[in-house]
């Protein structure tokens, strides 16, 4: 709740709206006890008094009634009707939406078509029709406004419910023996409530406006009862001679609706988890860099990462995702970077081209050199020219990296033309050639396909073709086969291996699978808790792992052909990188840990074969 308020007031406009609306609501609630004239007390002798007249702060209307008093009572009524209408529409709409979305099929079809019919009428016509049937009156205007707004809530909530109804926890509830009513009330509704609240907060303003509109037409509140709409309606005839009688209620409607809308938007932003971090609203084009010193290059290499440190600053917490990582990649070499989730392997890869989202990501140290040129802190234009041209990425899920609305051929053409000034026709031929290179059968026809029309394996081939589009020197592949089936994985790995050998590509291959590393990579680096704990030639590391973590991680993974067996598990969990222990991060889970492992900084020692351990399994 505190967090919610803090987020809400971080948005200044929403804070302003909250203050204005709060003041109006307090005044409206206090109206009966304020020393005001009676709102319906007529005094035709004093009609159309100007504002600031004695005894009448805002003047009087055509019957000499005190405008301030009428304004306060009218605001009270309009607010009450607006909130009530929103509540009725929200509850009724949510009930329809939840039922239609949960049961689906025919129930859904019938109810939603009914709602569609309601929506097909212009809203004011529908409201007028309802009032015409029920007769004029504030309560009937309320009903009309509520009914008119039900479709908006029903459709909104139905969409959310359809998503929830197919979630696994609903299946779990059914398996736990719950009936439909209980599932709806205890499983679905609690997940829908925030959406209803958000939708209501953004529509109350609209409903107040609609009620005022009906009252303005004389269909809402009946004289002498004041509400903002009827005040405007009565003042209409004197618009020129006594403009203040229109301006006063008009300004109040403006204030209410504006503050409600500003507050509503603020509530929506504060409750939406994606917008909450603020990262989505203002991402930077390249990761923020805050480094004090630039380490000297430690050697040669096409790509050299020296002492890279990438952190995430979220509030007061600092997550050291990548902690002094050094790697190097030679031309034509494949380096495997292996680790569990949260070990920092993906952040390392994204840091290379400044692709870590900022905020919250910050590169706080180290250097990444491509052919000797430091990329950390390089101007955005330089990074942009190199991204895709020299260093290309392949990601885990090609469905989320390919644009769903463009044909794959067009996406490839765009990738080519970003870096090379070729004609569209030439780029098209190149795109077909690329698709053929990644062995997509019938490439010319497939270029016209949309991403969703391809299977997972085919999409990943397109992802690879996209990475190859500008003939890069380095490909960084982040778990490119994790989402694929084994037979498809084997095809993709064979393809990558082929491309590497035929074009002299260097590959940084990120994975959690030792089997894949063993088949594809020349060298391997193992990460744990944001640091490299072991590195060396793949065959040597896999055959005789030096770090206890590597040894036990390999032992965890069953290998095909071993038959039924008990697996060797590592107890405990990987450490959180915002609270790393002193010394070796693996010490709390390690059976060989000594006191010395739990203090100080443990260095990575060795030459071709390096290990960060005081008591390694084998001498490096």
């Amino acid at each position, binding site marked *: 709740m505190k967090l919610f308020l803090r987020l809400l007031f971080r948005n200044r406009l929403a804070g302003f709206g909250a203050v204005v609306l709060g003041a109006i609501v307090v005044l409206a609630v206090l109206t009966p006890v304020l020393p005001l004239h009676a709102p319906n007390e007529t005094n035709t002798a004093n009609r159309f008094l100007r504002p600031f007249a004695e005894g009448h702060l805002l003047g009087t209307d055509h019957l000499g009634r005190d405008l301030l008093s009428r304004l306060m009572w009218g605001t009270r009524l309009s607010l009450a009707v607006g909130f009530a209408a929103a509540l009725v529409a929200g509850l009724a709409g949510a009930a329809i939406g939840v039922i239609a979305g949960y049961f689906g099929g025919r129930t859904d*079809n019938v109810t939603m078509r009914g709602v569609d019919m309601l929506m097909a009428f212009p809203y004011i016509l529908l409201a007028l029709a309802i009032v015409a049937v029920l007769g004029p009156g504030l309560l009937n205007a309320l009903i009309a406004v509520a009914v008119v707004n039900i479709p908006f809530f029903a459709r909104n909530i139905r969409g959310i419910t359809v998503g929830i109804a197919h979630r*696994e*926890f609903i*299946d*779990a*509830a*059914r*398996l*736990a*023996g*719950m009936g439909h009513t*209980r599932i709806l009330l*205890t*499983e679905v509704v*609690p*997940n829908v409530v925030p959406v209803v609240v958000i939708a209501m907060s953004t529509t109350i303003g609209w409903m107040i406006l609609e009620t005022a509109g009906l009252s303005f037409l004389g269909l809402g509140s009946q004289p002498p009862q004041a509400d903002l709409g009827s005040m405007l309606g009565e003042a209409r005839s004197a618009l020129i001679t006594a403009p203040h009688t229109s301006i006063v209620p008009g300004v109040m409607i403006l204030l209410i609706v504006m503050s409600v809308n500003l507050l509503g938007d603020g509530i929506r932003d504060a409750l939406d988890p994606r917008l909450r971090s603020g990262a989505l609203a203002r991402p930077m084009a390249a990761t923020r860099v805050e480094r004090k010193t630039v380490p000297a290059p430690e050697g040669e290499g096409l790509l050299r990462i020296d002492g890279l440190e990438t952190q995430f600053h979220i509030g007061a917490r600092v997550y050291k995702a990548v902690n002094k990582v050094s790697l190097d990649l030679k031309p034509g070499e494949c380096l495997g970077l292996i680790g*569990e*989730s949260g070990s920092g392997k993906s952040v390392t890869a994204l840091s290379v081209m400044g692709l870590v989202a900022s905020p919250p990501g910050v590169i706080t140290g180290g250097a990444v050199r491509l052919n000797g040129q430091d990329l950390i802190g390089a101007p955005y234009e330089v990074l942009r020219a190199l991204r895709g041209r020299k260093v290309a990425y392949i990601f885990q899920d090609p469905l989320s990296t390919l644009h769903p609305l463009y044909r794959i051929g067009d996406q490839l053409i765009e990738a080519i033309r970003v870096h090379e000034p070729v004609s569209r026709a030439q780029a098209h031929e190149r795109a077909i050639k690329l698709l053929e290179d990644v062995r997509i*059968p019938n490439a010319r026809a497939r270029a016209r396909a949309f991403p969703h029309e391809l*299977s997972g*394996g*085919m999409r990943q081939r397109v992802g690879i073709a996209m990475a190859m589009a500008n003939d890069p020197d380095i490909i960084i592949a982040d778990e490119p086969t994790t989402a694929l*089936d*084994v*037979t*498809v*994985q*084997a*095809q993709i*790995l*064979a393809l990558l*291996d*082929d491309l590497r050998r035929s074009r002299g590509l260097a590959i940084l291959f990120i994975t*959690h*699978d*030792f*089997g*894949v590393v*063993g*088949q*594809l990579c020349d060298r391997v680096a193992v990460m744990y808790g944001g640091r490299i704990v072991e590195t060396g030639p793949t*065959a040597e590391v*896999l055959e005789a792992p030096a770090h206890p973590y590597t040894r*036990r*991680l390999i032992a*965890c*993974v*069953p*290998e*095909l*052909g*071993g*038959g*039924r067996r*008990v*697996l060797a*598990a*590592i107890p405990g*969990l*990987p450490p959180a990188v915002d609270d790393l222990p002193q010394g070796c991060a693996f010490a709390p889970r390690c059976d060989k840990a000594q006191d010395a492992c739990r203090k100080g900084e443990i260095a990575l020692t060795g030459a071709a074969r390096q290990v960060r351990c005081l008591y390694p399994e084998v001498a490096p």
Partner: protein
Amino acid sequence: MTLALKTTDLARTFDIGKRLFGPPRAQVHAVHPVSLDVQQGETLGIVGESGCGKSTLARMLVGLLPPTSGSIEIEGRALDRADPAAFGRLIQYVFQDPVSSLNPRKTIRQIMEAPLRQLHGLKGRALDDRIAELFDAVNLRPEFLSRYPHEFSGGQAQRIGIARALAASPRILILDEPVSALDVSVQAQVLNLLADLKSRLGLTYLFISHDLAVVEAVSDRIAVLYFGSVVETGPAESLFAAPRHPYTKLLAESAPVVGRPLGGAQSGELPDPLNPPPGCAFAGRCPRASDLCRSEVPHLRAVEGDQFAACHHPITD
């Protein structure tokens, strides 16, 4: 040995392009008639690639999806209606994604209470005792009960999912990719926990996974699914070591194994489910396919010992 689970010609068809009246535009056979026997205390592994129908099969077995035809028998009792509550006491399900299988707006205690109250009518002291016992069984600390699902790591959330499934005191657990969302070091912990629970509580498992090595490590017997049909069944020790169906052989050869050279895996994809081939679904990718394969659907038959394959030209040594 008694039979824990028996399915007879269990099949499921999905209608594509439903119309308000009249027949649908097309039908997809997600699961072709499948007959499986699972012995009491056995672990049957089910492997297959995405789209092979393994999740549809699993959902039918727990009553979340009514079968189009065929029958399910659990410990000799027929269960035909799709009523998860009736199935719930006999057979339970552990979901693939541990976090999304827990309602984010409920505490762990509320999640654990649901099956105990609904299926077994427990209340008060008995309820608390049973929850404590279940949490102890899956090595979770009792203070977790007042927390919400997002506070847990994948491994812990999966233990909660297992505890919830066990709360129904089922005889059979369907484990649908229970470890594929977990890190390898945590994966082994959960697999070992499952093995331990099975021997302590005398459970029967159906273990569904796409990870051949994991299935081989935990199963007694394995069934391989391809395009909605069982193409091979056999003991875990021999199935991947000496596959009889060419598809099983392809799977075994595709699994990444340290030291085995890359390549050799031929391309090819699943047939179009809207327009399935007349004969064997694998014929288009199979090096041994003959004209017979392209015209006639092969049926499961014994090839050697306990190993059954649905192939006209099974691999024999």
